[in-house]
């Protein structure tokens, strides 16, 4: 009789322990999914309407415009001095627009990060209270958004295909290792500055997945260690967030144990470029 009673008590105990672990895993998986959703929402916002891909492509074309304008202006000095003034006017215009484009790129960088941050905060604030609960033997607190870190995906080139029709520029790019010979794309997170009198201009190309056979890479989750923290004012194409939540075995009071849950997501890749 006593053994039966002890066995019954043990069974109840095991059930409680099992339910506790079960609840814990359930909560963890739910909060992990919540973190994944937030990270994906933020990452998707970064390259909204392919703005990062379009900017990268325009930067590369602006660089070619400045290079060609400088080359033409140089040719007029000896061959056609009567149009030297026009050549200089067009060169100045190209340089001015390159500076304006860099300013706009920097503005886009802060705008995309700001919009992604707002999207993640909105999603978090709207759903965070869904994840706190109290059982007789377990209490889970409301998750908190600890950090957001923006950056790029490690090892991903830019989405820009080199334009090959100005051989001197291609040779320069190859000599400076600006082009990844394996992928045939400009490397990611580089400043493809020109040499000579235009070296003061910045032509920054950010890392972003290029389309493959006209297929756009969708926004996706990735491993935490694949995030390369953003620096050098490059456009960001990935985000890592960290949530924490308290879990206590005492249903009546905190503090309990802190769980930290992180999620990392990359934005959608670039769309095929307009020809």
């Amino acid at each position, binding site marked *: 009789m006593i053994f039966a009673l002890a066995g019954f008590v043990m069974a109840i105990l095991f059930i409680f322990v099992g339910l506790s672990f079960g609840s814990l895993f359930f909560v963890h998986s739910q909060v992990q999914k919540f973190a994944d959703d937030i990270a994906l929402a933020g990452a998707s916002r970064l390259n909204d*309407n392919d703005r990062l891909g379009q900017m990268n492509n325009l930067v590369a074309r602006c660089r*070619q415009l400045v290079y060609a304008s400088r080359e033409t202006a140089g040719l007029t000095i000896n061959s056609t001095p009567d*149009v030297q*003034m026009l050549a200089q006017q067009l060169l100045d215009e*190209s340089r001015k627009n390159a500076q304006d484009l860099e300013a706009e790129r920097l*503005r886009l960088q802060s*705008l995309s990060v700001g919009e992604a941050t707002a999207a993640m905060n909105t999603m978090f604030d709207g759903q965070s209270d869904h994840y706190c609960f109290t059982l007789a033997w377990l209490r889970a607190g409301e998750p908190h958004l600890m950090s957001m870190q923006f950056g790029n995906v490690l090892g991903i080139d830019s989405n820009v295909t080199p334009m090959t*029709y100005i051989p001197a520029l291609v040779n320069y790019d190859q000599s400076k290792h600006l082009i990844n010979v394996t992928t045939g794309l400009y490397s990611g997170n580089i400043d493809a500055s020109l040499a000579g009198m235009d070296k003061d201009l910045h032509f920054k190309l950010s890392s972003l997945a290029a389309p493959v056979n006209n297929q756009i890479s969708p926004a996706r989750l990735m491993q935490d260690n694949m995030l390369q923290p953003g620096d050098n004012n490059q456009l960001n194409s990935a985000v890592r967030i960290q949530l924490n939540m308290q879990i206590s075995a005492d249903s009546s009071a905190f503090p309990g144990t802190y769980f930290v849950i992180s999620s990392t997501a990359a934005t959608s890749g670039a769309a095929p470029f*307009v020809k």
Partner: protein
Amino acid sequence: MIRLRSNFISMNKQFIKIAAKVTLTFCLLCFLPAHAGWQPYDWLVTIETEGISGQFEYAGSTLKPVVLARISYARADGSDNTNYQTLWYCNGKPFGLERAGSLNVNPGQGVAMQIIHKTNPPTSGDYAAAANSILRIYLDIRVNQSMPCAIIVPDQSFDQIITDLTKQHFALLNSQLETPYQTGATLFLQDSSNQRNQTLYQLSDTSPNQ
């Protein structure tokens, strides 16, 4: 007798000269209809502007609207059509170039330009892109030691393109032809129906109309 003979030979030469001139003129007159497709240039550069939607659509974007100027050239008879380059215009300003080929026109050959707007109806961005493309192609033609000829623009955009050119340090040439002046770049625009034309020149410190 000798003098008479020499006079006869001299008259004969004069006659041959006159006959040759008459024959040449006659031949030219006869062959004119056969050369109805003749153009006063060797090459024609086509600048085709088109507005592109869905570019740089974000809050406060200074880069839209985007207009592409696709530039190609061909011989006057339409053969040897070659892509030359695409210029990217954002909000009316040139922001990008994608070179696709070289300007294989021999030095000294006449090169005309024609503007085509694929955007219907054309926008202010199309006019600005056309005007700036004209200047850039004009410069390429000059550097190539070729000879710029007329620039043929659509009737409806004739005035707007001239206005945009005047914003780029060009002025209307209204001086008398007898007035001597020195200028670097000179553009001769005519509309496609050949009703209007206008010469523009680049302003400099010593320009007459300044």
